[in-house]
């Protein structure tokens, strides 16, 4: 065993280090939650794989791997992520915050409309009875399991309107900024749960 280790060259060691790094990057890709980080990790995975190909005397394959894996695929992912163009709001409050006199004229609607227009999103407000009647404690679950981006609820004691969304969505920070001027509107961001929680 000791003889084997002393016979290894620098290139062999580099290869082992890169292979271990590959395992860590693969685990990170699976465990991470932020889309942007995952795209960067996928690109770096391809980069490490390409260096392994070079170490194994296959520069042809390495060039193909770099061009496809760490340039084209991440760019396609970035495009696909930025193409997500629908913003779905679940209205649980069911009062004049969004709909007044059977029309979309409430303060909340104007706020959300301005927010959606800023990002060129298509605002889609729903009050699906199946989802809307569920307990408030399940809101986080609802956002994770369905394609709802935002839930609007009303605090029964203070009368505040609470907008709930995912903390990992960059849009939520902007929404929080926009709602600073409104007195009775609060934004709640749900942290992503880790694996197995």
């Amino acid at each position: 065993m000791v003889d084997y280790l002393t016979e290894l060259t620098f290139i062999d060691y580099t290869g082992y280090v890169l292979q271990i790094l590959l395992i860590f990057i693969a685990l990170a890709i699976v465990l991470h939650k932020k889309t942007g980080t995952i795209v960067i990790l996928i690109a770096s995975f391809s980069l490490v794989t390409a260096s392994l190909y070079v170490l194994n005397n296959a520069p042809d394959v390495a060039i193909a791997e770099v061009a496809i894996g760490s340039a084209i695929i991440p760019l396609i992912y970035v495009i696909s992520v930025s193409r997500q163009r629908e913003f779905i709001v679940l209205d649980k409050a069911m009062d004049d915050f969004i709909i007044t006199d059977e029309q979309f004229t409430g303060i909340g609607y104007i706020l959300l409309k301005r927010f959606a227009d800023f990002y060129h999103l298509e605002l889609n407000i729903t009050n699906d009875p199946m989802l809307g009647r569920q307990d408030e404690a399940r809101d986080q679950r609802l956002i994770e399991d369905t394609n709802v981006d935002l839930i609007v609820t009303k605090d029964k004691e203070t009368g505040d309107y609470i907008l709930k969304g995912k903390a990992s969505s960059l849009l939520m920070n902007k929404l929080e900024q926009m709602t600073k001027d409104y007195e009775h509107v609060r934004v709640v961001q749900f942290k992503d749960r880790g694996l197995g929680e």
Partner: protein
Amino acid sequence: MNTSASSSSRTVVSVSRRILLVAMLLVLFGVFTVSMLELEELYNDYGRQYFFENAFDETGSRNFVTSILLDYRLFDSLFEAGILLIAVSGVIWISKHDVEEKNARFMIDKYKTPDLFVTFSRLVYPLMLTFGFYIVINGHLSPGGGFQGGAIVATAILILYYINPDKETNIGFIVTVEKVVYLLIIVAASVSIVTRGTFFTNFFPVDAPADLKAIYLVLLNVLIGFKVSLGLWTIFTAFLKEGR
């Protein structure tokens, strides 16, 4: 009462399923290890030795990978190029818009693309294009070839969409050109039936000088690079259009 019973039965099912999954993974790992051991016995140098001694004389390519791709196994390479053609048609077929609608304007939101990225893209774009062409043209001398160079050129074209979001592209035209180039590749590969008597090899005779044979290799590399970059370009544009 009823719900708890059903949930407990579901957990039993999921546990047994997990055990089954782990067992399957273990079996797969065992098969993989055994086959790797076999591979070490099968591994030999005969093929490499043959290419090392004869490939340059027979094909005129210093890059033995290119000599295999464009001469010895050209038949396989043609179908590899065909796969991309089929993938492009699949992407266009799946994306629900028709061709006329696709010719509309492209919009990458300028405020979502950072200025640093745009500036850097402007700087890197000509270099990427040059590097792509270099890899395509030197495919028979250095690592690379039509596919790799075509992919790099396609990336440069994709970066162009970030520099100029209002760029318009006629997908129907690109796809037509790609198909024509694929036909040209098949024709260039089949010319050898006239000169050599066999399909899918160099159309210069075997004893021709290497410089002459390089003409065929460069021609085929350029055609393949052109075809690959057009195909990948079509795929991006389909993605860019989707969801708008």
